[in-house]
């Protein structure tokens, strides 16, 4: 055992649904207290992976621990110490806010149930609305309630499956502040997301596509691992030239960023040469920039698609 034990330490985890291989040889290590971002396109196996970590699904094979408990055999004990927030709001619409929290507290067999529920309501700022049906809450409030219900039993690990989908920016920012507070208090957080700004708020990241983990590390490490060279193109008439830019030799990736365009490639010299030739005689300007996380992700996604659809 290490000095700082891993909250999650799994290796070679696989899961099949019928003949579909949904998660392939997943290996993850999360340090205690860190915020770990889990990224990847839709249908890449993120939700399945999270469900395996919290004991909802049993991996076909592989080994590993979650909070020091075996993911294959001790799922019941894991559930007791993990807070899992589902992708879709999954509290009971036809129960009130108070009843929902009370039910969850009962499910975890909490001793000081009433006190914990009252405290959660106060922290949420919902004491006055405890008798309101959960189904009538707005998206942002539903998300806060769901988070509060996951935290009720004071878990050591939080698994959040796209917690901020469909939530407004202000609520999203508040949510992330809360996540960082929890992390500072020693709770490990695994959060899946599609938002780049959220990914950048995580201590470390993993990128998964078609069930395969493609990269992991800090945001900088993930970007660096792709060896991309990126230029930003700006100027008049940019939109009309996008399609032609895409076909330039050495351009692996072209992405619009507002009024500018990011064009990236593995072979920096080749791309630079072809760009310079192309831009001669136009009013467009090119500037070398550091590739962003988004450039890296889109590049990985394209690469994996080519690989799996070939």
């Amino acid at each position, binding site marked *: 055992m290490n000095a700082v034990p891993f909250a999650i330490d799994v290796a070679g985890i696989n899961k099949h649904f019928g003949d579909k291989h949904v998660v392939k040889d997943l290996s993850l290590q999360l340090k205690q207290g860190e915020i770990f971002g889990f990224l990847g396109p839709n249908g890449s196996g993120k939700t399945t992976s999270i469900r395996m970590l*919290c*004991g*909802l*699904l*049993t991996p076909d094979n592989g080994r590993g621990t979650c909070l020091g408990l075996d993911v294959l055999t001790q799922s*019941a004990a894991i*559930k*007791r110490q*993990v807070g*899992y927030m*589902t992708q*879709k*709001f*999954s*509290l*009971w*619409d036809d129960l009130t806010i108070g009843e929902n929290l009370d039910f*969850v507290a009962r*499910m*975890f*067999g909490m001793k000081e149930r009433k006190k914990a529920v009252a405290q959660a309501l106060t922290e949420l700022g919902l004491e006055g609305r405890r008798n309101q049906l959960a189904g009538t809450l707005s998206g942002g409030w539903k998300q806060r309630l769901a988070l509060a219900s996951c935290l009720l039993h004071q878990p050591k690990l939080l698994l959040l499956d796209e917690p901020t989908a469909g939530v407004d920016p202000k609520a999203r920012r508040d949510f992330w502040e809360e996540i960082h507070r929890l992390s500072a208090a020693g709770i490990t957080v695994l959060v899946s997301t599609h938002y780049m700004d959220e990914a950048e708020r995580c201590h470390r990241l993993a990128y998964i596509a078609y069930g395969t983990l493609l990269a992991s590390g800090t945001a900088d490490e993930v970007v660096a691992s792709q060896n991309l060279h990126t230029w930003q193109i700006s100027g008049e008439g940019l939109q009309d030239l996008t399609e032609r830019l895409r076909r330039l030799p050495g351009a692996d990736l072209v992405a619009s960023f507002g009024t500018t365009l990011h064009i990236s490639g593995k072979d920096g010299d080749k791309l630079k040469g072809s760009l310079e030739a192309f831009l001669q005689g136009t009013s467009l300007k090119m500037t070398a920039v550091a590739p962003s996380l988004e450039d890296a992700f889109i590049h990985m996604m394209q690469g994996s698609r080519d690989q799996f659809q070939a």
Partner: protein
Amino acid sequence: MNGFSFSRWLGILIKEFIQIKRDRLTFGMIVGIPIIQLMLFGFAINSDPKHLPTAVVMADTGPFARAYVAAMENSEYFKIIGSVDEREADRLLDASEVQFVVTFPVGFHRDLVRGKTPTLLVEADASDPMAVGGAISVLNHLGMEVFAPDLPGLQRPAAAPIELRVHRRYNPESLTAYNIVPGLLGVILTMTMVLMTGLAMTRERERGTFENLLATPATPVEVMTGKIVPYILIGLIQVTLILLAARWVFEVPMIGSLALLYAVVLLFICANLTLGITFSSIARNQMQAMQMTFFFFLPSMLLSGFMFPFRGMPDWAQVVGNVLPLTHFLLLVRGILLKGNGPALLWPHVWPILLFMGTVLALGVKTFRRTLD
């Protein structure tokens, strides 16, 4: 602009057909329900049942008695299962093994020849009055047809040569309520128990709350039983309401043990809940759970002997009917309420319900595991 657009309308039509086609269970029901109904109504249901099992008590075995028995059988309304003594005849009636017991008195033959009118005792199990009506009216005619040709001219009576004394056992006034009220007990329980549990589980799955429930330390057994028990209580309340109405509004007699009745009711509720839970683990959404319930409910209503006499159905329909818990429940409830039957007479209708429950439970557990993982 706002006129009726044919192509728009066609678009909606096509979308609807595609969606119906996608939902294969619904599609199956659309085809299956009319076929089942046709089969049931067309072939299985017969409100004038024939070949009713009948026992005879022969205190006189003379030729006239034998001729009468033969004529009963020839009428096709009766199927003579044998000649028994009086005690056995009573047991057969209590156990619902026969519909009629016909007793030929001592001196039946002699009295007939002498022109006295002997009395023929016919005991009918009238707990379902509809099942006996046709056969009894036939008996009335039989007397004339059988004996008149063989009796010497002088003794040939103008009126019927025998007197028919019909005892409508368990339901002397032929009140249909005696049959319908215990029947409704079973029908209502089937409906609510299967449907409610079917929906309770699929609702969790449809709304995504099931995942949340599974993420808590709650075990499948806790979830299942925790969800079932409230419905058992609801079922018992329904039963109590129906029984109160049966007693005070419809004045249905309650001869047997109330404790035994509740025990039987509990068994029946459990059988239906098991089915409901199994449906809910097979169905993908509430709509499908509802359709499965109706798919089960229809034959339960029609083939159990609730709406139409069980013995009027052809053999294949009786086989199907015997699988359904409601069929046995009806006999159990009538047996307790109207006949005062004890456990020994009830057992033959208890084990088929247990068997049904066991089979469905095994199926349910199998599918439940699969949907979890």
